[in-house]
């Protein structure tokens, strides 16, 4: 049957398309079913995988350092196992043998770096033993399981005298021992590690006298995998509730089925595509598929509601009703889907692989809704039996409809409008107040991925309480040449760095090569404390290193220093990874690094005009002498130097310097890649260029370990949070500009979303939820999905004003018709996401809750603020349509005329 009836002239193409889809329903259905079956097949092969590397901004300089050295100095993937006795001390035969077996068990776990295990029962943890004849050798603390109480007492004596063990691997009260293992990043199989740690390390040794606690990133992700099964419980609950709600809303089971078809087809296309491009589902991103499916279902609900309406309007003509619903909702639906897809695609700009994968897969999934919702919609309706007229007619008498009508009536009164504006302003001000406390990074010491009382966080806290700090920040001391680490100056700098940063309350303790050399020197001098210092010359330093490391293979010593003694590290064990603490620690690191470099150059700085960097004083040391065109540290005073008091430094290397902060950054960067530092100086009105040989053997480079990688992620977040907000709103605005051909339309639709954003941020701040890599996509996803509500209302208002002429009547009708469906879809969207609050994974629970709040606030905004603003300000993009009833045309008439 062709379009032999009158349709709106401006939408005749859409009506024609809807009709053609019905006409060619069989081939279209067959193609869609085949493609969907293929995607379903691929979808069922998907696996849950989290890749730690995907969570990191790989281009960040800290991550480059982390990647370069994590294999030797340890990365962010440490597992910390603490064994704690309830009574007495760990120095008993039974407990020490447990530690021995647990260490062996941990050494057998898949992916462990066998040379990076720290435990008093591991071969790599050694102490210096003075043998007969005065010879010294470093030997493991435990060579075999303990047999007698005397042996246990001897181990206690060794531990209490070893600076690299007591307090670090054995608690100061002797009640707990720590076993730390680093895992190879490319071999992280979180599920397997979780199971094997449980089987080898935890279960056999936890009893009435001993407690075992396990923390660390691989363990954390193991728990996340363990809890990923929550998704099925949430799926079942959500599905059942949604089915009942839709059934009750439409008074017909077809109303429950039709949106399900849309959602399931889109899900198959989305999941299949993820597998097809070689990606996997991240257990931390499982909320997103739910949300997208809920979005697909929401569009289908709008369409189904409109189908009922058009069915009655068309005189109970099924095909006309289908075509009319398709034609009338095509623009808002397509616009909504496009907004959703592009909103999510913006996330692609964040240089974090996991978010980029999310952007690609989610956008595709959302775009797949166009197939399942728009292309298939007329066909599915055509195949299904039409609803009984009695059902359509009597449904309008329902309490839901009456409630919507009552609310709309109150909202559009003068008092209602005033109250709406005042309440929104007040809510926004309150949210602004709370929003000030919003933090970047984790605001708590516990892992935000799991709940505070989860077994993981309980273990994490127990270890932190006992050992002060277990989260490593690795600062690499990179030498310019081999043997740089034998330079006493370099070692003293490491020691000073440790003492400087240990003043920070978030640093538990630190460890470096300097600790080893001091301890060895002391042992070498019969344990006299006055010899616990770094020797003055590199020959003595080299000798002591030889004594300590000579009995150990390079694979074991590499965790302290590389075999050529070029590079070592200072590791700070932090008490937590709160965003603000990480920021402060990194700032202190930078201050120390550039501060010592300035000191080593023998200069002090002052601030000149316009914040210029001016040299205040030049110290007598180092003594400079000319070596060709460069200045190097010499031994005889030449009376000349590269710097003079009053010099203004204008550039370091190629980087211009305008203030001290820029100078410090430029100096550290320049020293990081060259030994010859170029300074551009203004002296007495003249411009000079000075090349200075760096007076140090090694430079500190930030930063590895968990804290280092989180610092990099947080720095990227600061940059990208603002960018995400801007691009999210800009994308939506542009889509609205094209949809309504109006500059103002975007403002009316985005206003409630901007306020929703402020309120959600306020909620996050008030509830200690920080902006992190997982919450970053929230704003763009929330924006894309939130704008759909407004789109349906505004589009219907425009449609109505063409017929009615009165703006207020049109807004009322839009709220009572599309608004009713919007209200119902908002309820279903909120329910789809809010059930995630039951998840054991705190991140998913909070993400679900935040998205639910986003959806709820933006719905309330679209149902109250947007219509009130439209009625108050009478925007031209709506008013210009008044009384412009669309001309009706008939396709057959047109053809006949031709």
């Amino acid at each position, binding site marked *: *049957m062709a379009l032999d009836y009158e349709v709106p002239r401006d939408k005749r193409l859409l009506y024609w398309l809807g009709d053609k889809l019905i006409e060619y329903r069989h081939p279209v259905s067959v193609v869609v079913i085949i493609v969907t079956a293929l995607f379903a097949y691929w979808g069922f092969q998907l696996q849950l995988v989290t890749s730690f590397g995907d969570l990191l901004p790989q281009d960040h300089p800290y991550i480059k350092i982390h990647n370069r050295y994590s294999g030797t100095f340890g990365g962010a993937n440490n597992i910390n196992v603490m064994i704690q006795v309830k009574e007495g001390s760990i120095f008993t035969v039974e407990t020490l043998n447990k530690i021995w077996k647990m260490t062996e068990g941990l050494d057998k776990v898949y992916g462990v770096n066998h040379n990076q295990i720290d435990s008093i029962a591991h071969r790599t943890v050694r102490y210096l033993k003075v043998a007969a004849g005065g010879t010294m050798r470093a030997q493991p603390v435990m060579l075999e399981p303990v047999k007698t109480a005397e042996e246990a007492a001897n181990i206690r004596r060794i531990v209490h005298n070893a600076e690299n063990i007591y307090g670090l691997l054995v608690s100061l009260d002797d009640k707990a021992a720590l076993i730390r293992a680093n895992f190879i990043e490319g071999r992280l199989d979180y599920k397997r590690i979780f199971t094997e740690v449980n089987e080898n390390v935890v279960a056999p040794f936890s009893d009435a006298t001993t407690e075992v606690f396990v923390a660390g990133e691989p363990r954390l992700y193991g728990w996340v995998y363990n809890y990923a*099964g929550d998704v*099925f*419980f949430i*799926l*079942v609950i959500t*599905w*059942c509730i949604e*089915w*009942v709600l839709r*059934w009750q809303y439409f*008074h*017909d*089971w077809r109303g*429950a*089925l039709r949106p*399900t078809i849309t959602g399931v087809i889109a899900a198959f296309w989305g999941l299949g595509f993820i597998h097809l491009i070689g990606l996997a589902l991240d257990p931390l991103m499982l909320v997103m598929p739910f949300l997208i499916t809920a979005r697909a279902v929401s569009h289908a609900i709008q369409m189904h509601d409109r189908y009922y309406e058009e069915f009655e309007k068309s*005189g*109970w*003509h*099924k*095909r006309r009703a289908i075509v009319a619903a398709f034609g009338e909702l095509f623009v808002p639906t397509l616009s909504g889907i496009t907004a959703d897809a592009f909103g999510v695609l913006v996330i692609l700009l964040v240089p974090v692989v996991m978010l980029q994968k999310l952007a690609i897969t989610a956008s595709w999934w959302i775009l797949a809704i166009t197939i399942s919702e728009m292309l298939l919609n007329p066909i599915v309706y055509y195949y299904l*039996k*039409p609803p*009984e*007229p*009695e*059902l*359509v*007619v*009597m449904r*309008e*008498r329902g309490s839901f409809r009456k409630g919507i009508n009552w609310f709309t009536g109150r909202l559009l009164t003068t008092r209602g409008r005033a109250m709406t504006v005042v309440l929104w302003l007040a809510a926004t001000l309150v949210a602004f107040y709370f929003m000030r406390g919003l933090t970047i990074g984790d605001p708590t010491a516990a892992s935000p991925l799991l709940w505070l009382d989860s077994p993981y966080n309980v273990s994490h806290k127990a270890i932190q309480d006992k050992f002060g700090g277990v989260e490593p920040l690795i600062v690499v001391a990179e030498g310019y040449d081999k043997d740089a680490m034998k330079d006493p100056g370099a070692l003293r700098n490491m020691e000073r760095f440790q003492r400087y940063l240990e003043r920070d309350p978030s640093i538990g303790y630190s460890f470096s090569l300097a600790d080893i050399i001091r301890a060895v020197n002391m042992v070498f001098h019969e344990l006299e404390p006055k010899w616990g210092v770094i020797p003055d010359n590199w020959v003595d330093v080299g000798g002591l290193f030889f004594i300590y490391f000579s009995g150990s293979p390079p694979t074991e010593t590499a965790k302290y220093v590389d075999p050529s003694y070029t590079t070592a590290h200072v590791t700070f064990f932090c008490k937590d990874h709160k965003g603000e603490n990480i920021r402060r620690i990194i700032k202190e690191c930078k201050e120390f690094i550039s501060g010592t470099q300035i000191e080593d150059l023998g200069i002090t700085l002052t601030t000149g005009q316009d914040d210029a960097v001016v040299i205040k004083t030049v110290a007598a040391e180092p003594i400079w002498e000319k070596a060709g065109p460069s200045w190097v540290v010499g031994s005889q005073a030449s009376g000349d130097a590269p710097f003079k008091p009053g010099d203004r430094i204008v550039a370091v290397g190629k980087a211009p310097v305008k203030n001290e902060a820029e100078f410090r950054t430029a100096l550290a960067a320049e020293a990081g890649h060259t030994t010859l530092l170029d300074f551009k100086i203004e002296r007495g009105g003249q411009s000079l260029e000075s090349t200075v040989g760096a007076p140090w053997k090694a430079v500190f480079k930030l930063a590895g370990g968990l804290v280092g990688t989180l610092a990099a992620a947080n720095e990227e977040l600061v940059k990208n949070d603002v960018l995400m907000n801007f691009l999210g709103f800009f994308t939506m605005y542009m889509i609205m500009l094209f949809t309504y051909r109006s500059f103002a339309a975007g403002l009316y639709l985005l206003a409630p979303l901007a306020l929703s954003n402020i309120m959600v941020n306020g909620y996050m701040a008030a509830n200690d939820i920080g902006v992190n890599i997982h919450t970053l996509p929230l704003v763009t996803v929330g924006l894309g999905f939130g704008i759909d509500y407004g789109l349906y209302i505004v589009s219907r208002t425009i449609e109505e004003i063409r017929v009615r002429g009165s703006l207020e009547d049109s807004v009322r009708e839009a709220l009572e018709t599309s608004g009713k469906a919007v209200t119902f879809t908002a309820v279903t969207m909120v329910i789809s996401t809010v059930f995630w609050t039951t998840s054991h994974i705190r991140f998913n629970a909070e993400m679900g809750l935040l998205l639910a709040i986003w959806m709820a606030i933006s719905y309330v905004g679209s149902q109250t603020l947007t219509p009130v603003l439209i009625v108050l300000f009478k925007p031209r993009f709506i008013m210009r349509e008044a009384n412009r009833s669309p001309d009706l045309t008939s396709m057959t008439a047109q053809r006949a005329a031709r």
Partner: protein
Amino acid sequence: MHLGMWNSIAIVLGFSFFVIFLDEYVVKPWRHKKWERLAASGDKEAERLLNMARSAKVSDE
């Protein structure tokens, strides 16, 4: 009971068929009777709407 992928799918499919059955054989007949009762009890609007629905000629094409 531990919920996995396949038993979750079985539950949701089973529930959906249960809703379809309930709608077709229990709720719809009950609603129909309720409206007829309302119309018979003198509810003018119910009577009007019911008459309107009864007189409707559905075109399934």
